């Protein structure tokens, strides 16, 4: 099952943990907020993405099922 990384921009407070744990998919803008690509993640990357989502202090990183 492939997933997609998404940010809840209201919840996000620019802690930046996600960009450290999933640098392949997430970069930070100049204010520290994550920029994610909308591409599906799977396999080993999915494990990293899950860890990044769990590490977010405000639960702002979501792993959504692909429609």
């Amino acid at each position, binding site marked *: 099952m492939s997933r997609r990384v998404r940010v809840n921009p209201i919840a996000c407070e620019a802690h930046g943990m996600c960009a450290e744990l999933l640098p392949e998919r997430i970069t930070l803008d100049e204010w520290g*907020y994550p920029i994610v690509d909308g591409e599906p993640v799977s396999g080993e990357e999915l494990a990293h993405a899950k860890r990044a989502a769990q590490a977010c202090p405000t639960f702002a990183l979501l792993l959504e099922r692909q429609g």
Partner: protein
Amino acid sequence: MNPADASMLAPPAADHAPNAGSLPRLLAGVSDDGGRVHVERHLSVHGGLPLVGGRRSWRRREESPLVEEVHRAGLLGRGGAAFPMARKLQAVAAVRGTAIVVANGTEGEPASEKDATLMELAPHLVLDGAVAAAEAIGATEALIATCEIDVGAFESVSLAIEERSAAGIGGSDEPSLRVVSAPSHYVAGQETALVNYLDGGPALPTFTPPLPFERGVGRRPTLVSNVETLAHLALIARHGARWFRALGTPAGSGSTLVTLAGPVARPGVYEIALGSSLASLARAAGGTTHEVRGALIGGYAGAFMPASRLRDVALSEEHLAPHGARMGAGVVSLLSTDACPVAETVRVARWMAGQSSGQCGPCVHGLDALAGELERLAQGAGSGEGRLDYLATVIARRGACGHPDGMVKLLESALRAFPEEFADHARHGPCERCASPPELPLPARPVSGERRRSRRATA
């Protein structure tokens, strides 16, 4: 639906069926002095609202014939997004639970007055539309949301609800109707913000999903629809899709309300056929009183167009699309040659940045940075073009609502419409017109006690 059903929908109200190809529709019965259409006049002009064949609850799966009629009419939302109304009705009706209707008349666009004008002058059409929509989707309740500064609209709709019951319209079968006054900041009318407010929260956008159609006011499936869209629905329920399509273009059917501002003899709210030319609108308003440099079309999430493109342009989605513009909320603000388009853009950009609800980082920081970059450009600090492009790319699609995207589109359109003016300011700083009085309206921070009242509408 076959034609026989269609005629059932529009019963032989022959004495009330106005000539399909003529205007006004929504503003029919509004007297020359801009008088309000009270209930008796409403009934004599439009006739009563026919039974629309609704379903009593979501448990009855069959679709209301009105939904099919609206689909055939091709009615698109008039609040800004031009979303197909039939699809919205279907989406809400398909969700389990008793639905609710929210008629959105909050009209956050500073340059738009058409929703408040419609509610003030023809409140019964808006109520009829809310009732018809409610019956079609099995809703038991309809809320009409007005903007707190539009006291006239609030009072007119409140009075109309009293007039309805005094006139014996509706009765116990009818969905309950209530007017609610909502805050006036820019994003307050965004549908998730409005739902949030009606649920007792702040009027701020929420993260989606869930969208209001799945879980809205009181966690119920919620139809949030612009008040003008509902007024059109009320006429489609009476006269049918074929009548509706007698005006407009194939992709943009019917009439629409526009708010015309700027150097014309009689600025105000006009009802036009979609697809009619901007030139004919200006003529209806008594012609221009000053040479025109360009126009803002749609609203502050809309697009600027230079004068050279205005001469032949028609007002509909398909005619505006090649110019990167949209009908939006029906705003047509003409800029005179006295105005500096750069200074006007800078003012709007700074105001839009200040209207960020402060929830999403990329919007809070990005819009402020974008406005600052423009201010530096206007002062002659160089074009900073790379920086503007970069900011536009970084900001777009990163907010919970469309506010940052709207501002990016507006700025891109300004740079496209007035390239020489921007290049000139970047090199030489302010021009002599930069000090001209502002032409595009910007509300000061909503002050309590501030009221918009007098309205003029023309068909």
